[in-house]
């Protein structure tokens, strides 16, 4: 099979890639990498990072570079996730792609790790850090609330890669007490419900035992 993804289906980064493939309706092979055994450090290609991606001869890492490649290379398949034609519209999507990568994820990913992952592994949550991260996330969600009051999706009128990148961490955080931060912002909440209800995401979840 031309497209392969190496990773752990529980990892938000791997889920980001799987969701993108599901939205684009692309067949692929998933190669499970057991992070616990350090398996990902063994092969030279995938030792840099997981998830890792192959499409024929092309090899890529970094989930957001992988999804960008998929969105452009398969622009005509499945859900349009970027705007090939309109440079300005693509630039706006680009802004919110960076906001997710630089601001939302910084707080959200670490929160998810502290509140969800650590207890599962039997490690102690750093409560002081959790408070700090919640404050950071609040700042971001206040900006999102304003944005989503004037725009149906972050990047514009249509669902795009900018929204898609948020799905795995939003999904995790809504299982925790941090859900309140999303619920108390009506536009953010409506957007969360919308993006989590997409059939492609449900398909990804079916493959994840969590």
């Amino acid at each position, binding site marked *: 099979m031309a497209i392969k993804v190496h990773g752990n289906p529980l990892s938000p980064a791997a889920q980001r890639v799987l969701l993108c493939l599901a939205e684009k309706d692309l067949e692929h092979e998933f190669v499970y990498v057991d992070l616990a055994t350090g398996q990902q450090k063994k092969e030279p290609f995938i030792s*840099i990072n997981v998830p890792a991606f192959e499409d024929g001869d092309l090899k890529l890492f970094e989930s957001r570079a992988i999804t960008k*490649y998929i969105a452009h290379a398969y622009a005509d398949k499945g859900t349009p996730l970027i705007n090939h034609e309109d*440079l300005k519209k693509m*630039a706006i999507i680009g802004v919110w792609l960076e*906001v997710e990568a630089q601001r939302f994820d910084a707080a959200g990913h670490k929160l998810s790790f502290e509140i969800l992952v650590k207890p599962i592994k039997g490690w102690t949550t750093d409560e002081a850090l959790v408070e700090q991260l919640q404050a950071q996330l609040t700042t971001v969600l206040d*900006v999102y609330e304003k944005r989503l009051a004037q725009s149906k999706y972050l990047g514009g009128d249509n669902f795009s890669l900018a929204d898609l990148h948020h799905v795995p961490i939003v999904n995790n955080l809504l299982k925790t007490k941090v859900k309140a931060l999303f619920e108390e912002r009506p536009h953010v909440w409506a957007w969360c419900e919308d993006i989590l209800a997409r059939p492609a995401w449900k398909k990804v979840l079916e493959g994840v035992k969590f």
Partner: protein
Amino acid sequence: MAAPVKVYGPPLSTAVSRVLACLLEKDVPFQLLPVNMAKGEHKKPDYLNIQPFGQVPAFQDESITLFESRAISRYICDKYANQGNKRLYGTNPLEKASIDQWLEAEGQNFNPPSSILVFQLAFAPRMKIKQDENLIKQNEAKLAKVLDVYDKRLEESRYLAGDDFTLADLSHLPNGQYLVNATDRGELFTSRKNVERWWGEISSKESWKKVVEMQKSPSPKSA
């Protein structure tokens, strides 16, 4: 003739300098507009309309307003694809994919620890803020691991994404500049043979030298 694009913010800001380097590489005329952060201008409604987080840079090009330096840089490369350094963001999708990969590596892996080190070691002393030794140690260790990966990569590849200097390399210049020249941790770069070679090449680009000049100048306005 099109009006020059507008960049808001001081060249000393790492994120602003990232955009300036890109504009200079692409030969795009720009106007640099100050944001008086001492007077809280960045938190006022007028500014928040163009940058909702109240940070720099913000960018305007005809009717479009953008923020986030890496998004601005990608836009500049796409819009002005046919001028200046045409290979800065690749000339085909495969080249672009490789550049995006290393741009994400910069944004996700290099930027967080290097930003903290730059703040702690270069800025905190100037601002009379107490340094956090633990934070410095932790992030030095993190950055060392990242640079080990880079050193391996740069053994086989002249620049991060391939044979050409690209946006992926450029994106490292702002933090790298402070680390190597304004802190005593430059050896993080210089002790790694391939990273040192790469740093030497990318930091001697004419465009970056111009940005460094702007950072030293009391009131740089445009190019």
